[in-house]
């Protein structure tokens, strides 16, 4: 049970508490980190000058002698930050951003500005300024509320890595000084890392933004806009409120085309859906909305009903760096002018980010250390939803800016998008999924583990131990830990409890090893069975039988070897002449297994014929024929020759390899 549920809200006892935190209407979770922010956008300087009041309610059983604040935008401050290792080389001043603390004080006026220090011990990079530590005059005791006044100025970089601006489009993510996560072991916060995301406590936000007048009605926010008024200088004052959320992002652009729709999935509460669309993406409007509408109904049925009354989709312009990111009650999509219908985008990205509303927005797992919990579950369940709602998408190639769908070349989900996990398991093997995400060797390890491997693993477990139990376990996990910051252990416990120990064990195996699953049929032979020959019987009944020509039955031998580190229960299917099929189950744990069967002649042996384990890195070696069949290679030889003939003719015409480089 997480801390927030164990402790009642003991407001009023606090010595540090003075003003009331943002008013709460219908909150379902005791607030820990709440913010009241006022910020003014400076279009010229691309800055937000802000003043925030931070309310921290200590709902843990320990004292907090200091405050740890994330200043995420300082990741863009200079080329020595931890984040900069993952950014493209800067090309000008626009590529830099910052979050400066102008003044930090307690609500009673005690100034703490001079106490601020950066890069606390263990942060690993003395030059990084994305984590600020502020010692307090006296600790925040359990049940007490700390009220902190912070003046800050945030400069947004040109759009990169989820935040920034492009032309008149602005997406502000991680833009304000934000508390680290309070846990029973103290603050949990890491410097802003290029391949990991965020972790924070739930709370309520009351945010007032002063923006250019032209964006009136075109401001997308976490939660909802409750008030919009023009000021005397022609600007628009936008007030937004969000409850039970752990982050606040907003976006505005005079170009946005706003579409509002009420979605009422059967048996679930109504949701107001707001789409902020780029004009050149008009063709994708209905595709965004349909994916959201049907996704809300499906995920609501599979998990729990969507927990908020409002959902906002921001469609960013290409090149803004803001594509495909999730925030509570708000996510960004990503599409293109000519996005072909059969390519499955923007539907797939919409469903993925929508799934994050549960696996991140509502569950609020630690994305910095356990990215597989949000990315893996979202990737898996959204792949399921996409296949169910829209069918298998086609591969799309792009030539000269024109996307061309390859109709017959299908990209089944999640497999077609997750082969990087198998490459990682076959070649790199740098990190097991359960290594803290930020400690992974590189971005490829993070992406393949958190997204692809986790999705393939969950799909494989569903296919191996049964789909319904796995779905039931995931639903129970979402229900039980709603607003509860669960960990990998919590997920595994629920999985074991609901789907059974085998499901739990398999997921654990897949997450604790960096290695591969690989089963290979290494022997499949059939020879005439030798009739009994030699000395037979005992004592006086011992008789000699001379060797005879082999009879009509066959002795078939099949050997399956486990070549990968990770064991998986598999079936082995042996097909015999005359149509007989024998299937054997093997727990897959030993190094190899041999079967000898006498009877009709063996035709083929295949391990995992029903493709239950998608983690197997080599499907080709999953089976052997006793007699080679050259048909497929011959067909390809034939195709290749015709291709080569035409390419050669093109050479004669142009003497350039076609398609290189477009």
């Amino acid at each position, binding site marked *: 049970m997480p801390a927030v549920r164990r402790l009642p809200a003991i407001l009023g006892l606090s010595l540090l508490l003075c003003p009331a935190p943002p008013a709460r209407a219908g909150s379902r979770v005791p607030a820990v980190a709440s913010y009241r922010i006022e910020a003014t956008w400076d279009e010229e300087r691309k800055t937000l000058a802000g003043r925030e009041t931070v309310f921290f309610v200590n709902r843990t059983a320990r004292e907090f002698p200091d405050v740890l604040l994330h200043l995420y935008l300082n990741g863009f401050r200079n080329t020595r930050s931890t984040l900069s290792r993952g950014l493209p080389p800067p090309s000008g001043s626009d590529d830099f951003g910052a979050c400066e603390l102008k003044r930090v004080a307690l609500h009673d006026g005690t100034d703490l500005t001079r106490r601020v220090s950066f890069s606390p011990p263990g942060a690993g990079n003395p030059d990084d300024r994305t984590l600020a530590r502020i010692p307090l005059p006296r600790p925040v005791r359990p049940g007490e509320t700390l009220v902190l006044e912070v003046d800050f100025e945030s400069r947004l970089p040109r759009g990169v890595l989820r935040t920034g601006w492009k*032309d008149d489009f602005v997406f502000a993510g991680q833009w304000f000084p934000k508390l680290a996560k309070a846990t029973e072991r103290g603050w949990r916060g890491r410097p802003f890392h290029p391949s990991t995301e965020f972790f924070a406590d739930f709370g309520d936000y009351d945010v007032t933004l002063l923006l250019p007048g032209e964006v009136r009605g075109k401001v997308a926010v976490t939660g909802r806009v409750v008030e919009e008024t023009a000021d005397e200088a022609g600007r628009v004052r936008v007030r937004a409120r969000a409850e039970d959320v752990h982050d606040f992002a907003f976006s505005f652009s005079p170009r946005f085309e706003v579409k509002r729709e009420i979605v009422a999935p059967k048996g679930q509460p109504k949701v107001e859906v707001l789409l902020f669309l780029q004009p*050149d*993406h008009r063709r994708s409007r209905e595709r965004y909305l349909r994916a959201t509408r049907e996704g809300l109904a499906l995920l609501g049925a599979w998990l729990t009903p969507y927990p908020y009354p409002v959902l906002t989709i921001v469609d960013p312009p*290409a*090149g*803004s760096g803001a594509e495909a990111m999730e925030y509570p009650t708000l996510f960004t999509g990503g599409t*293109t*002018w*000519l996005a072909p219908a059969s390519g499955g985008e923007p539907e797939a990205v919409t469903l993925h980010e929508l799934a994050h509303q549960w696996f991140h927005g509502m569950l609020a797992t630690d994305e910095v250390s356990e990215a597989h919990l949000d990315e893996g579950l979202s990737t898996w369940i959204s792949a399921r939803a996409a296949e169910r709602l829209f069918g298998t998408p086609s*591969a799309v190639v*792009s030539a*000269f*800016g*024109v996307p061309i769908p390859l109709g*017959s070349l*299908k990209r089944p989900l999640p*497999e*077609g998008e997750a*082969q990087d996990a*198998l*490459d990682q398991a076959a070649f790199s093997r740098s990190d097991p999924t359960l290594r803290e995400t930020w400690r992974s060797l590189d971005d490829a390890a993070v992406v393949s583990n958190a997204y692809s491997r986790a999705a393939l693993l969950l799909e494989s477990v569903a296919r191996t131990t049964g789909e319904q139990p796995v779905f039931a376990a995931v639903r129970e996990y979402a229900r039980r830990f709603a607003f509860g910051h669960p960990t990998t252990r919590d997920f595994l416990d629920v999985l074991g409890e609901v789907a059974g120990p085998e499901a739990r064990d398999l997921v654990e195996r897949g997450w604790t090893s960096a290695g591969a699953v690989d089963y290979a049929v290494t022997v499949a032979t059939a020879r005439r069975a030798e009739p009994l020959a030699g000395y037979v019987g005992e004592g006086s009944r011992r008789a000699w039988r001379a060797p005879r020509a082999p009879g009509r039955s066959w002795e078939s031998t099949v050997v399956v070897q486990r070549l990968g580190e990770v064991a998986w229960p598999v079936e082995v299917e042996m097909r015999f002449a005359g149509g007989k099929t024998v299937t054997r189950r093997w727990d897959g744990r030993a190094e190899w297994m041999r079967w000898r069967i006498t009877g009709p002649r063996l035709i*083929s042996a295949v391990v995992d014929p029903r493709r239950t384990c998608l983690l197997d*890195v*080599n*499907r*080709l*070696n*999953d*089976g*052997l*024929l006793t007699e*080679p*069949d050259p*048909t*497929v*290679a011959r*067909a*390809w*030889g*034939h195709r*290749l*020759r015709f291709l*080569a*003939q*035409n*390419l*050669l*003719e*093109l*050479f*004669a*015409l*142009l*003497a*350039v*390899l076609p*398609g*290189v*480089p*477009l």
Partner: protein
Amino acid sequence: MKGSALPFLWARGLVAAATTWKALLLALLLNASLALVVTAPLASRLHDLLDDRPAAEGLAKGWDLVLGAHLLRSEPGLLGDRARLERLEQGVLPLAELPRLSGPLAGLLAAGLLHAVLSSLLAGGFAGRFAAERDRGSLAAFFTDVVRLGLPSLVIGVLGLAGVLGAFALFVELPREATLSPDLRWDWERTLLSLLRLIAFLFATSAVRAVVAQSRAALGLARTANPFLALASGLGFVLGRPVRALLLEIAFGFTALFPLVLWLLFAPSWSGGDPRLLALLVAGQQAVVLFRLLSRTAHLGAATAWMKGAREAGRPAPAKIES
């Protein structure tokens, strides 16, 4: 219809090319043999990898993305260097890296260059035959022309290739970053600028091809086999009638592609079964390739007829002999 009208030239070119059918069959044989040789290692490797694997069944009908990924994972060098292949797939492999390709792609590149060289030599033979009044279909005369005009034709071909590569570098490679830049405001700007790149390249290539064809025609018609004089004459001819020369080139370009497109759209693919179907498909494919060779040659035939006609029209008419 005027003798220099496009449809007339187009038809004349095709008829002229058809009369050299023996030489065309020879060119087809050359093309097919090179293709056979260049794909042999890969085809044989595929037999090693797939013949005793039941999973190969999934590749019988066509490519399968997932199974293909498994195949390339189990045999990373199958199609050559993986990293370069990926960049090739994304369309960002710079021209300068072509010599560093490995595996089947490198083989294809080498065979392609060889094929281009041999085709240029043969083009000398075709140019000679189209310029001649008699013995158009004679293989012996064709080879005499290959010996006489092959090398000059190759020189013209190499210069043409340099022109095409130059156009590629100038119109496709150089502005790539700029036209795909994320700084562009709208999606359609990116697409239209990229298409503009393609159109500029195709236009330049067509121009180069037109000059090459007229130069080879001039080579066949000239008394001396000087490639540079022929080039000057071809260039002059094209500059004198740029629109029609380009249109002629484009017409033959489309003619060549037409049967191939039909084939790709409608022909069944062989995935095992009846070997007679395979034989029929191979014959159909050879017909498609032969038609492409014919179209390319017909361009030269049309160019020669056009140039000849123009020269005859430019000459003063012979005085009438009164009797």
